[in-house]
Each structure stands twice: as structure tokens, then as C-alpha cells.
């Protein structure tokens, strides 16, 4: 497997507080990497550094033999796209306008809207099944609809890597499944590499390929997802005991927080 993104010794310090220290990992081509960890572990910060939203204090990220820090923000946005955790300030946009704005990185000041743009937007809309509410205002969408629109906008960027920050956290079970199926479809059918910050252990264990576990800004564990659901591993990560069972339908191993009886 070829390495698509190489992260080495990434450190983030803000006002003498170390939020991330010496994080290193590789993202393979076509990989689905889940970043797990307790709240405040630095998961979102890591995504923001990769996207160029927060500058790292030290360390390097290499993509195509090039350091990300040498790319302009526009060049970076042609390699990586990002779906943030909470969305604010989008109130005044029509869904269609918002999705189209995802094409920014492929334009210069004077360039006209062309066939590539139209195709990219149509494709993003079809994949995310957002045709039904293109004419609506962003602030009238439900959580699940808004998340699909956010993913559609990111897809317009046509990047090989997609970063998602807790894409299912605020959704009901049906929409969680829906968004996760969409992400897997992007990964498997469209070959987009995924880095997803998540709290959904069982989804990560079953459907992603690799796990990066962070705790207090440090890398606790990195490995294939199949190895995640181990008692010691999970209790070390979350400081919580887990019990295991198998999924009645699929037989896959499932972790549940243990109850104090």
C-alpha cells in the first residue's frame, strides 16, 4: 500500500498548554482511519492542523513528497477537504449556493464556472442524495440533512482525502447509519481516503481500517481496527471498563460500557 499522508512529530502548544505532542502516523491510499479518544484528547485539533485551520507548533505533514506547510491554502484545499463538527453562521445560504462554494479551490479570480464545476457539483449532489432540498435555506435543514449538505460541499473539492469531525455525533440512530453508509460508500466506491474523528467504537472497529487512539494529546495506540476491541486497550483509553458481546445479526464483536451491578 502506498502512503498518502505522512504525519511526523506533530506538536501543538497554545499558551503553554500542550494539546498534542509528537503525533506520528501514516495514512494509506484508500484508507479509512478513525481517530478515537476521550474528550479533550486533541482529536479535533489534529484535524484542524491537517486542514490548515490551526497552525502546528512543530512537526511536519507530507503529502505527495511535499510538506503541507509549503502549500498555499488553496493548494491544500485541493488535497484535503473537511467537514467540521458544528456549523454556525450558515444561516443565510441557499443549499445549492453553499454546495457550489465548495469549488472555490479550483478557481482563480477571473475563471468562469465551467463543465468540470458543473459535473463535480452534480456528482456531489447525487452521491449525497441532496437533490430534494437544493432550493432550501441552510437554517431550515434537519441535522441529518445539514450533515449531508456539508459532505456534498466538501466532495465538490474533489480531494483524495476527506476529514470528518464527529460527523454523526448529533444525529439520531437512523441518520447516524445513513451518514456512516455514505462515508463508507465514499471510501469504498469512490476511493476517497477518510480520516474520521469519532466516539462510535463499534462503528470504528467494524467499518474503518485503522485506528489512531489519542489520550491527553499523546498517541496511545495505532493499529488495524480489528484489534481495537480488547479490554485493556479500551479501559486504558477511556478509563472505563467494557464488556463484549456479538452482534445478533452479523456476529461481529461489539463493546458495551460495563454496568456497576
Amino acid at each position: 500500500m502506498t502512503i498518502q499522508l505522512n504525519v511526523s512529530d506533530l506538536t501543538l502548544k497554545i499558551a503553554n498548554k500542550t494539546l498534542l505532542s509528537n503525533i506520528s502516523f501514516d495514512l494509506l491510499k484508500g484508507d479509512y482511519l478513525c481517530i478515537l479518544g476521550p474528550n479533550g484528547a486533541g482529536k479535533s485539533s489534529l484535524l484542524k492542523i491537517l486542514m490548515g485551520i490551526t497552525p502546528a507548533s512543530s512537526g511536519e505533514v507530507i503529502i505527495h513528497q511535499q510538506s503541507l506547510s509549503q502549500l498555499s491554502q488553496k493548494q491544500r484545499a485541493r488535497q484535503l477537504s473537511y467537514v467540521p463538527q458544528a456549523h454556525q453562521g450558515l444561516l443565510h445560504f441557499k443549499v445549492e449556493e453553499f454546495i457550489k462554494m465548495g469549488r472555490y479551490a479550483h478557481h482563480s479570480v477571473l475563471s468562469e464556472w465551467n463543465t468540470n464545476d458543473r459535473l463535480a457539483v452534480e456528482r456531489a449532489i447525487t452521491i449525497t442524495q441532496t437533490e430534494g432540498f437544493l432550493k432550501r435555506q441552510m437554517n431550515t435543514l434537519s441535522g441529518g440533512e445539514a450533515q449531508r449538505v456539508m459532505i456534498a460541499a466538501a466532495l465538490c473539492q474533489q480531494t483524495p482525502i476527506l476529514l470528518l469531525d464527529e460527523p454523526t455525533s448529533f444525529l439520531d440512530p437512523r441518520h447516524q447509519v445513513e451518514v456512516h453508509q455514505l462515508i463508507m460508500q465514499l471510501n469504498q466506491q469512490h476511493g476517497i481516503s477518510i480520516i474520521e474523528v469519532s466516539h462510535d467504537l463499534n462503528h470504528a472497529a467494524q467499518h474503518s481500517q485503522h485506528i489512531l487512539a489519542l489520550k491527553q494529546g499523546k498517541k496511545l495506540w495505532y493499529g488495524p481496527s480489528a484489534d481495537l476491541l480488547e479490554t485493556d486497550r479500551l479501559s486504558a483509553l477511556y478509563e472505563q471498563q467494557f464488556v463484549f458481546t456479538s452482534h445478533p445479526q452479523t456476529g461481529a464483536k461489539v463493546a458495551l460500557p460495563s454496568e456497576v451491578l
Partner: protein
Amino acid sequence: MKPTTIIILLILATLITLGFSSYLGSSTITNPDIQQHILTQIRIPRILFAFLAGSGLALCGMVFQAMFHNPLATPFTLGVASGASLGAALYVYLGFNISLLGIDGGTFAAFLGALLAITFVYSISRLQRGFSPETLLLTGVAISFFFSSLILFTQYLSNLTDSFQIIRWLMGSLTTVGYQDILQLLPFVTLCAATIIWLSRELNLLMAGDDIALSRGVSVHSVRYLLFFVTSLCVGAIVALCGPIGFVGMMVPHICRLLIGSDHRWLIPATLLFGGTFLIICDTIARLVIAPAEIPVGVITTLLGGPFFLWLLIKSRNNET
């Protein structure tokens, strides 16, 4: 209504306003030569000047609202205009009389004041991670008060003539005008408008928040510094020449957004046209209400703007809950 229709209607409204306001005035002289002179040498330059100033103020307000994702954020509420006022007042007080490339030194003093204020407000609001609109607005208010008291102090130290000049100018007025004043303003408003038009896609994305804008590929920080620079120049030039004419930058872009939506490719021309027209109308009212005397135009805009500000404040509170 389609955006093109709205823009065409706004162009018509602008032309009608330009026409009507040139024929409205306190003068009742029937001598055609003097009429002609008043029209071409006094009213027309004044109307053009009002149009430029109104467009400039409205565009700068629009930019601030987009950059800070808040309808209450404008060069006035964030203290940029009071920074410019302080610069200009100091220039009058110190009795400088410099000009560079035909541009009066007062403009540069106001520009520096504006730049100082925005740097200050922006740095303070950045001290907190993920700056909140409240911090930003309160910092702006604090800066405004601080600069206002420095202006008062400057006035206190000045002699009677300078002091009167400062007071009269602080009320915001378009009276002191001939064609040369238009040339003092034109380059700055044009530069500002051109930059804003050039950055219309970036402004659209900035409205969605910094994180989204960055992830779409906008170099948010360079864009923001560039916009700070050109709006400070524009606000500085307008404030130096006509004083702080408040609230145009808040009301006009907001009304335009309700009319035509938030896409800056349409919002910019709408704001430019409506801003200019709005200030011409306010100035015509200022000339006519107690004719033959006139009210400073800043009084009119502030009388309209105060209630509007409160309405926006209540409305945005309701939206949050």
C-alpha cells in the same frame, strides 16, 4: 424577484434620486444664471460626493458584517470610525497642513487612526480562542469611548476656532464641498470597491465562518488583512472629509441582504447603489427640513440608525433562542 431585476430597479432609483435631489433645495432665486450656478457648482458636486461617501460607508459596513459574521459589526460599532476621527482631530489640532499627491494629510491621519483601531480591536478579540461576537462588539464600544474621550481632550486643548471646526465636523456633514473634494474621495472609494469586488467569492466563504473558509481554500488571514487595509483607507478618507456619518454602513447592507440575499456577487452592486442613494436622500432631507439652514447629515442617519440598531439587536436575540 431575480437579482438582475433588483439591480436594475436600484439603478433606476439611483438615477431618479440623482435627478430629483438636484432640483430640490432651499434656494428660491429665479435668476436662471444663478440657478445654473447653484446646480452645477454646488448641488451636483455635493450629490456626487454624497453618493461616493454613502457607497463607501455601506460597502465597508458590508465587509465588516461578512468578516465578523454579525450584522452589528461595522467600522462604526467596532471603533474604526472613532479611530479615524481621532486621527483627523489630532491633525486639525496640531495644525499640520501637508498634502501628498494632491491628497490632504487629514485623510492619512484618519487612515492611521482607523488602522490603529482595527488592529487593536482585532488583536484583543483574538486573545480568546474562537473570538465571540460579544467580545468583539464590546471591545469596539470600549475603543470608541476611549477615542471619543481623546477627541474631547484634543478639543479642550484647541483654540475656539479649531474646536468649533472639530465639533461641526464630528456631527457628520457634506457641506464643505466642491469638485475637488470628490477627487479627494474617488481614489479611495474606487480602490476599496474594486478590492471588494475582486474578493467577492472570498467574502461569501468568510460569511460561513473561518473554519469553513479555510477548508475551502481561502487564505483567511491575508484576505482579512487586505480588507482591513482598504476599508481603513476608505473609512479614513470619508471620515476626514465629512466626519463620522454613522449607521449607513449598518442599515444599508442589512436591508440589501434582505432584498437580494447574501451572495456578494449581487450584494456588492446592490449595497454600492443603495448606499449612495440612501446618503443622497438623507442629505437632501438635511438640506430641506429647516431650510434655509441645514441639519448635519450625520444627525439624520443616526436618528434613523439608532432605532434600526435596536431592532437588529432584538431580532438577533430572538433568533438565538
